[in-house]
């Protein structure tokens, strides 16, 4: 159990570093701005306590905000995404009971399941974020297209990270 918490904390730090130092430099065609840090929320175990889920999302968003001068925007988007996570899991898999401690990943749940689950939550996160960032609704179409393209790109990056992580845990078993 303690080992798991330490693993999540290390993941937390590595993801922030990756996002801030590398992924934040991506600027593809003026439209696509990927974010990989939400995979931290995606990877929390199914049985995670509700307040732990929300508070860790809050901490994650705040850390990213601190590094990108966005003040509260990532915090709001990530917390919203964490709030939606239980409903999305129920929606995607139609059940609520999972083995305690299992994490959502392609090895446990299959590639298709993970892809749908991640894509929906990432799109929720990106759309929420880009709407707060613009703070107006007059260029609705522009924001929607930007969220879609960025969301798809982020999900692709996140699927790669899933594969890297779950390969390692399978080897550990």
């Amino acid at each position, binding site marked *: 159990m303690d080992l798991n918490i330490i693993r999540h904390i290390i993941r937390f730090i590595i993801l922030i570093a990756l996002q*801030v*130092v590398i992924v*934040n430099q991506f*600027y593809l065609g*003026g439209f696509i*701005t990927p974010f990989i840090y939400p995979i931290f929320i995606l990877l929390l175990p199914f049985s995670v306590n*509700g*307040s732990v889920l*929300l*508070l860790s*999302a*809050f901490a994650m*968003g*705040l850390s990213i*905000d*601190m*590094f*990108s*001068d*966005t*003040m*509260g*925007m990532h*915090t*709001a988007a990530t*917390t*919203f995404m*964490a*709030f939606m996570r*239980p409903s999305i899991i129920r929606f995607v898999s139609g059940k609520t009971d999972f083995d305690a401690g299992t994490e959502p990943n392609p090895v446990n749940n299959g590639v298709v399941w993970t892809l749908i689950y991640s894509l929906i939550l990432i799109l929720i996160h990106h759309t929420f974020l880009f709407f*707060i*960032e*613009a*703070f107006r609704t007059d260029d609705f179409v*522009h924001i929607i297209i930007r969220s879609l393209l960025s969301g798809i790109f982020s999900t692709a990056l996140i699927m790669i990270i899933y594969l890297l992580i779950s390969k390692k845990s399978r080897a550990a078993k």
Partner: protein
Amino acid sequence: MRNLFNFIARHYFFFLFVALQVIAFAMIFQNNFYQRSAFVNSSNYIAGNIYNLRSNITNYFNLKQINEQLAHQNTVLLESIPGTFLQTDQQIFTLSDKQYRKQFSYYNAKVINNSVRNRNNYITLNKGRIHGIKPDMGVITPQGVIGIVKEVSGNFSSVISLLHSDVQISAKIKKNDQLGTILWEGYDYKKATMLYIPPHVQLSHGDTIITSGFSSIFPEGIMIGTIAEYEIKRGDNFFTIDLDLSVDFNKLNFVYVVSNIYKEELTDLENITQN
């Protein structure tokens, strides 16, 4: 009362979510309305040092380009040295001599973090309060205007880029001194918009836009960009001008922070007149 507590306890997930959202939005509004982010911004100690480390590494790859920029700037400086000085006592000395008093002083700084992809972009510099940087100073490069200092910590400062919805810069067309306002409408970091040029003014593609010097933040004559497109939108009384920015915001290295020595005197005087 007990029922209320029970209700909250049963739906703690929802109420915690609402509480966290309220905190997040409070931060967003506070930052947007007061331009204040005393604690959580990238001029804080940890973020500043991480960005400093990254830019120390990446800077080696840009050395050639930086050298070219510096050489170019040296030639420009040699040609235009008196440009930043205020002329005084004109009436007495016009014929034989002119007296200048220094109006602007410059600090050099290095960009250690920068973004062009958001609606509101910020830049972090490696100089701060102990080097003499203060909020509301202008930031320029030899190529043109960069932004305005927003917050300073001891060793770092956080700059609002020209690519930000709150930035409006007083500018003029170089060839005929017509005054307008520069702002950024998002989407493309190579473009900006100029407003409030009346329709009788003759414009042509490629006209140079420079700072007006009226804002007390930037000296007069700092390059901003060149005219790419212009039109009068239906129902408007003014031109809407699209500019090509002269600065490549995606490639910032070394910048200058401009301090106007007479800024307080100017703003005090203007406040008295306006109130």
